[in-house]
């Protein structure tokens, strides 16, 4: 009987993942990851409630459960990166980094140390074995597909990974949980960045990075106000600028980190927000057969954004030039660019530099 370690967060998705594996006859072990050390105003660890849900669900399913602490690794590999990116004026994606460094690295190693044959998670994604290779496929629920966050996985990980709910729609997952009477059946989906949760993002960030207010200007140098600190803004953002007056609304169109200037412009469709080419770094290909020459595929520059046709060309081992046939709005440095061929997620990287008509944009400068 193959042994599977399921990463359980206390949410409905991983609960159902564990239940399905158990029903399929696997030797299932539930493990709760504690990645963040936090206590609320009563001194209670905020992970406690989620862990208690894991305990309840595992009792219901009839599987053993444990917890594992990756706070140190998470701090070093994910949170440090997260802060560094903000310091550089970019908009990081800690979920991608967490999957790469924690869930499918440290946690995968932990699962293997427990004699597991596979690691399972509650991600909406699928794995297929075709032509001697593992493929990462989009989850069947198009609205929930999470391959965007899994773009850094490769053959070594996919050969050990199961995504039991990748074939399901979210509504089906809830239905299964409800029918089985799982404690998490009606639990609200978590939102936002896991370690921040429902808290005020600005306040959270200000605990770690000094906020340096500065000038808010148009690209022509017209001062429109002051900003609270560049890290609080992302490209294409409308809310929180505090620029009133008549005419079209104002949007963030760029940052000058050196001089601490936030660039703004008017109109959702302002040309300044559009780009047609990027340089991506840290590019990973799911397949071991690395592409040569130009690859025509589609790409996502943000989670839950429709795919855009692109051409990818590797410049060196891990850097790619990605050109798109149509201009895309608010492509943001620090976020992930993820490549697809139909259902297949080919891989992805980090958006580093952004261009329009061959000219580098001021997004981060």
């Amino acid at each position, binding site marked *: 009987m193959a042994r599977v370690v399921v990463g359980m967060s206390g949410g409905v998705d991983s609960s159902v993942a564990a239940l399905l594996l158990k029903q399929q006859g696997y030797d299932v072990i539930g493990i*709760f990851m*504690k990645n963040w050390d936090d206590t609320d105003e009563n001194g*209670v660890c905020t992970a*406690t409630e989620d862990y208690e849900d894991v305990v309840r669900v595992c009792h219901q399913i009839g599987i053993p459960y444990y*917890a594992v602490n990756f706070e140190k690794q998470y701090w070093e590999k994910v949170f440090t990166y997260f802060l560094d990116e903000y310091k550089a004026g970019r908009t990081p994606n800690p979920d991608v980094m967490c999957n790469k460094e924690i869930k499918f690295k440290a946690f995968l190693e932990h699962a293997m140390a427990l*004699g597991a044959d596979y690691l399972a998670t509650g991600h909406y994604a699928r794995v297929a074995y075709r032509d001697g290779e593992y493929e990462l496929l989009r989850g069947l629920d198009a609205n929930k597909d999470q391959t965007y966050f899994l773009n850094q996985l490769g053959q070594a990980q996919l050969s050990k990974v199961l995504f039991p709910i990748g074939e399901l729609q979210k509504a089906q997952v809830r239905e299964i949980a409800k029918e089985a009477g799982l404690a998490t059946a009606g639990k609200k989906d978590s939102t936002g960045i896991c370690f921040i949760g429902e808290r005020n993002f600005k306040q959270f960030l200000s605990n770690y990075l000094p906020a340096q207010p500065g000038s808010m200007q148009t690209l022509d140098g017209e001062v429109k106000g002051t900003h609270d600190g560049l890290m609080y803004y992302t490209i294409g953002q409308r809310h929180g600028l505090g620029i009133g007056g008549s005419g079209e609304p104002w949007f963030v169109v760029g940052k000058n980190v050196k001089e601490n200037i936030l660039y703004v412009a008017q109109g959702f469709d302002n040309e300044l927000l559009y780009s047609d080419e990027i340089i991506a770094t840290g590019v990973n290909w799911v397949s071991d057969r690395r592409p040569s020459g130009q690859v025509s595929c589609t790409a996502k520059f943000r989670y839950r954004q429709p795919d855009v046709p692109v051409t990818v060309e590797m410049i060196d081992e891990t850097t790619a030039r990605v050109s798109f046939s149509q201009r895309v709005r608010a492509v943001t440095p620090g976020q992930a660019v993820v490549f697809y061929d139909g259902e297949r997620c080919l891989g992805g990287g980090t958006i580093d530099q952004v261009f329009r008509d061959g000219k580098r944009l001021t997004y981060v400068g």
Partner: protein
Amino acid sequence: MERIYLDHAATSPVHPQVIEAMIPYMTTFFGNPSSIHSFGRDSRRALDEARETIAKTIGAKANEIIFTSGGTEADNLAIIGVAMANREKGRHIITTSVEHHAVLNTCKYLQKQGFDVTYLPVDEHGTVSVEQVKRALRDDTIIVSIMFGNNETGVLQPINEIGHLLREHGAYFHTDAVQAYGLVPIDVNEMNIDLLSLSSHKINGPKGVGCLYAREGVRLIPHIYGGEQERKRRAGTENVPGIVGLQKAAEIAQQTMAEKCMLYEQFQHVMLNTFEREGIRYAINGRETSRLPHVLNVAFFGTNVEALLVNLDLAGIAASSGSACTAGSIDPSHVLVAMYGSESDRIRSSVRFSFGYGNTLEQIERAAQEISKIVKRLTKA
């Protein structure tokens, strides 16, 4: 798969004789010991006998025993009770950095109430010296609380010597003897102990009962208010079946002390021999010469305790390490940190095995084999 329980320091199975002794006090003799009718008297007699029996095992008098809900309540009552009753005399408390959380967190609470607490560090063997206590003593020291034997390492503190030192000082001497009771002889007079905490479930009694010995004349303020039970020192109807269980467990613990010690020494020997034979890299945490025999805390270098404990559990072997946080993950042991520093390899690679009623030599041999197998697998590069 036969499971092997090596976590008796966490809690222990109830001895069949204890269960037998308790049953009548839930069926026939269910009366409230404070009641004036025959039902009450039946329970009252049992309560007084239990008090007498338990007092005798530590050389105390019956009226010096206060029944509580367990070791934690006994520790709380001793430390907070003495501190609050004597705060006009002084506000200084001495304890150690390796106490059970029932003592440590009680002291932390008192710090917030304005008391001054000295946490004595321990050496790499896990012990404090009489000299350290002597140096820490002040004119305003009102209580010294030092555990008898450590729950994580089994390390024994020089209780007798500290007791003697305190004869010449006005501070009360409290010791948490929850782990040591039943495995080492204790005489509160000889050792000059003023307050001593005991727990039932560590010695094959039921959970939810324990007691505090408080020497006659010790000034103590209660912290549970209500009826006048326990000479107004602890309100609430007495847990009679539990107390009868504690009495029986205490009797058995005293009668079997010598044979248990011999058996557990042998268990340790077998376990360590197996590790040697299998070429496992390990070290015992704590001074080898003066430890409680039922606790063996071992660092397996190159392993991670979270993976190790889960593997042991999956193989049916129950052991533990430090304490789990509310979110289930294992916090580094404050005891090992105090002994070896937070950067030591031992902090994240140590496991506590603790022996007790029901363990057999065959179990220990099989467990040692299984542990060796797992450690080898985890340390294989």
